């Protein structure tokens, strides 16, 4: 009789909580992983490397007082030799789990270094797939992985470096409904994301669960690094930026450009900070912001405020809690919808559906002007096309019909209900 061990139950509950779409995505991702792994195995059998598979035996030396195997001692010897690191730090590292959110320009180098250093459990989250334009900086992904899940591709790259650790890929992305559960299962989190809503979500989840968050960001030749939610005094992202910047003040790598080594530098430093935190070696970069200027090749370290007592996430009376977080509208808070819709925030969305439907769900910032066409029973989209035509007749020539309407929106934004 097969019965799930107690250790398997949280993972089982987690899988049970996933929607059918997420399960399908996971199955598709596992199939993709299988293909990737087979590709690698075939490459191996051709014998072009001539190398040996790493030994993963767990023989523990009889004359030692630690839990490291002989293979681990050999493998990690160069860091074990460090007086300030040693056997105890390596043991802590091998028991630690790190969540990496984003498998891009920051997440690739940070996860590779964490895997190589021997972190016990690595989880890599990213809902995106690999594109050719990613390859110049997202160094875990190979040309062969183009079109595959970034999370899986990055996980495969980590496993290729270190087969003795556990690496999980989450290709369904980091969302309000799974954020807390994912964060709580790890000792430290790396913010390697590329957008404002995810950065606030990560910070809130880490503030609630008191999990240190190593936050990196890069664009062009500029990059920033700090550690949030650390210790009793460390601020969270919201303590520093209680109000989200407007979307047009936020450039992304895809529209502003970035030179590969710039996020590379910060991703590697994120791995270093995560290792320091889980091994309790050195001083973490809490209440300090490190600024990197790639053009001038200079680092600048500045002191930032401690935790804000009135912070909505980590203050004395937080309004963002484990109960409220899953329903928090991060796209509305950061005003990102307008940007996704039209590339700038000067757009006004007029929702012409009946008020009942508007109340069920609507885009943040949209206004409801219910419009009844002469033949409202006709095909979907007719009503808004009539409304736009009437606006044009009335002289509002810039009015446009959003093709596909909210159904098309729901196909892209899975947090938006389709009905």
């Amino acid at each position, binding site marked *: 009789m097969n019965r799930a061990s107690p250790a398997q139950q949280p993972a089982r509950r987690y899988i049970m909580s996933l929607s059918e779409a997420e399960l399908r995505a996971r199955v598709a991702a596992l199939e993709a992983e299988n293909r990737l792994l087979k590709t690698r195995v075939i490459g191996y059998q051709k014998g072009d490397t001539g190398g040996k598979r790493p030994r993963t035996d767990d023989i523990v030396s009889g004359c030692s007082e630690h839990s490291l195997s002989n293979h681990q001692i050999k493998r990690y010897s160069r860091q074990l030799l460090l007086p300030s690191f040693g056997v105890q730090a390596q043991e802590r590292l091998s028991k630690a789990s790190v969540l990496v959110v984003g498998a891009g320009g920051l997440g690739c180098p940070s996860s590779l270094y964490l895997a190589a250093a021997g972190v016990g459990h690595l989880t890599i989250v990213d809902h995106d797939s690999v594109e050719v334009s990613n390859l110049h900086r997202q160094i875990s992904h190979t040309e062969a992985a183009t079109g595959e899940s970034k999370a899986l591709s990055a996980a495969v790259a980590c496993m290729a470096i270190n087969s003795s650790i556990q690496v999980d890929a989450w290709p369904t992305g980091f969302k309000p409904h799974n954020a807390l559960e994912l964060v709580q299962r790890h000792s430290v989190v790396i913010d390697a994301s590329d957008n404002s809503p995810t950065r606030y979500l990560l910070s809130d989840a880490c503030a609630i669960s008191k999990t240190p968050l190593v936050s990196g960001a*890069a664009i062009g030749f500029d990059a920033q690094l700090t550690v949030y939610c650390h210790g009793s005094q460390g601020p969270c992202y919201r303590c520093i*930026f209680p109000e989200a910047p*407007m979307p047009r003040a936020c450039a992304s790598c895809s529209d502003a450009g970035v030179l590969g080594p710039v996020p590379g530098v910060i991703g590697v430093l994120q791995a270093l900070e995560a290792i320091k935190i889980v091994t309790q070696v050195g001083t973490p970069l809490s209440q300090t912001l490190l600024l990197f200027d790639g053009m001038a090749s200079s680092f600048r370290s500045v002191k930032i405020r401690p935790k804000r007592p009135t912070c909505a996430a980590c203050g004395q009376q937080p309004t963002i809690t484990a109960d409220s977080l899953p329903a928090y509208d991060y796209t509305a808070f950061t005003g990102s919808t307008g940007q996704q819709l039209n590339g700038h925030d000067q757009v006004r969305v007029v929702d012409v559906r009946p008020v009942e439907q508007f109340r069920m769900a609507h885009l943040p910032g949209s206004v409801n002007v219910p419009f009844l066409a002469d033949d409202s029973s006709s095909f979907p989209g007719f009503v808004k096309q009539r409304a736009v035509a009437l606006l044009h007749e009335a002289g509002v020539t810039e009015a446009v019909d959003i093709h596909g309407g909210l159904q098309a929106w729901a196909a892209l934004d899975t947090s938006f209900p389709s009905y």
Partner: protein
Amino acid sequence: MVKLNLHFSGGLELLFGNQKEYSVDVPHEPPSELKVGQLLVWTRDHLLTERPELFMKDKTVRPGILVLVNDVDWELSGTLDSELVDGDNVVFISTLHGG
């Protein structure tokens, strides 16, 4: 006059003629000290070349900008009322989101 070194980064330099460093003499009458709030207005009126709404909102910096006086968060020195003297360094950083 108060002699200051200003530094813009994180993309803010694009609003200041794509120049990151400025050494400036800000007009000021003693005996009271020059405050960061006054410097913001002077900077907007004399150095900023485009889109003032991406630098200031009402009387302060827009959300997402961090101000540092001598490499210390202005929250620790009184935000708009932080006092400035000759030789001080003031850094304006826009938070980055890319990865």
